[in-house]
């Protein structure tokens, strides 16, 4: 038993339902909808909120399944919010802090690295055209941002590798401002060597992007692979930052720049109480709220190995300097 037939034939009433999964294991992608009630996306990552939602008996038992094109009809019937800002980043550079500060305001919907967005971007691997991907991206964004608590704005923090998808995201959302967050590469690399993100381990992401999965294949070390991907991310950001709509921010400018620069760039006119609410998110480590947030620059610098320092000097430091010079 499932909700697929229900969704395929007459189309379910989707009021109150959100498209939280896109199943790519089937020949035709299936969208799975759950009903989170008034629960906001306030956890550090989209998936964390989803895990909480899926602990609720209702969502364990009742989910609609529909084809992708149901997103299009639902968008026509019930348009949601247009994204007010995209957060791109090179990972380990304060992006979660930025997204959590934005999520501190109840009028904001903040989606942090939502897997369905990545699934839609990757549909090109299964033959989707750019026009189809753009239509699905817009329709998914509309459906996921249906206000359930009077929300007025939508912000999306993307995965680090989505900087390579910026051209299609800009085509889909030409009016949406975006930022790229970066950090001293020695510190990013030191962090990545301890716990690398998916994009920094060869073969973990299902993609045909040469910047993540180089045709040449395996490099000699994990650090070398990570450095090559980070270099590609920084190059892509530099290339796109030459166009309007984007701004780059160094980790060293956080968290202050969220209030002074990022919010205005995202056309957020903050009131005093809103600034207070956003700043209230700062004292805590945003990924592990029981720990106090503090800059770990000194520790990361100490942790960097000789190999990491050499790779940064050879491949990344010059790109970092270019970003800082913008």
């Amino acid at each position, binding site marked *: 038993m499932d909700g697929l037939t229900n969704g395929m034939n007459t189309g379910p*009433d989707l009021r*109150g339902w959100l498209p939280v999964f896109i199943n790519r294991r089937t020949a035709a992608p299936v969208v*799975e909808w759950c009903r989170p009630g*008034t629960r906001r996306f306030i956890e550090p990552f989209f998936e964390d909120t989803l895990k909480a939602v899926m602990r*609720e008996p*209702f969502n*364990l038992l009742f989910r609609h*399944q529909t084809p992708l094109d149901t997103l299009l009809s639902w968008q026509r019937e019930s348009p949601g919010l247009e994204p007010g800002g995209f957060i791109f980043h090179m990972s380990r550079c304060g992006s979660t802090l930025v997204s959590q500060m934005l999520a501190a305001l109840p009028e904001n919907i903040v989606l942090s690295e939502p897997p369905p967005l990545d699934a839609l971007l990757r549909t090109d691997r299964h033959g989707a055209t750019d026009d189809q991907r753009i239509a699905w991206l817009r329709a998914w964004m509309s459906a996921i941002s249906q206000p359930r608590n009077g929300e007025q704005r939508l912000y999306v923090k993307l995965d680090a590798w989505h900087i390579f998808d910026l051209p299609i995201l800009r085509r889909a959302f030409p009016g949406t401002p975006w930022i790229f967050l970066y950090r001293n590469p020695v510190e990013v690399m030191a962090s990545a060597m301890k716990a690398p993100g998916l994009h920094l381990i060869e073969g973990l992401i299902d993609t045909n992007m040469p910047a993540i999965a180089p045709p040449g294949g395996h490099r000699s070390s994990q650090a070398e692979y990570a450095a090559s991907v980070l270099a590609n991310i920084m190059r892509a950001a530099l290339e796109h930052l030459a166009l309007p709509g984007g701004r780059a921010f160094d980790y060293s400018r956080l968290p202050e720049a969220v209030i002074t620069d990022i919010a205005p760039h995202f056309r957020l006119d903050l009131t005093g109480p809103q600034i207070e609410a956003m700043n209230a998110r700062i004292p805590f480590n945003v990924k592990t709220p029981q720990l106090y947030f503090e800059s770990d620059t000194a520790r990361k610098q100490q942790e960097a190995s000789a190999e990491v320092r050499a790779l940064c000097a050879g491949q990344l430091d010059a790109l970092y300097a270019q970003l800082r010079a913008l």
Partner: protein
Amino acid sequence: MSTPHTIESGFERFHQLVLGNTALQEDLTGITDREAFISRAVELGHQHGVPIQPADVVAALQAARGAWMDSQMV
């Protein structure tokens, strides 16, 4: 990722009833306490002429939990 395919057949009519009825969805959404959810589901089933027993809901929840856990395995 899929909806539970192993829900007990006695529960199936209630499942379809809820998926097609927004008022029932609103009633049951947000009940986080398992026992309270089971009681309310049984009550609503009887009210709508689709009688189910607590054991039906328990079995459905167990099956759904298993399917969810399986879907999370990489």
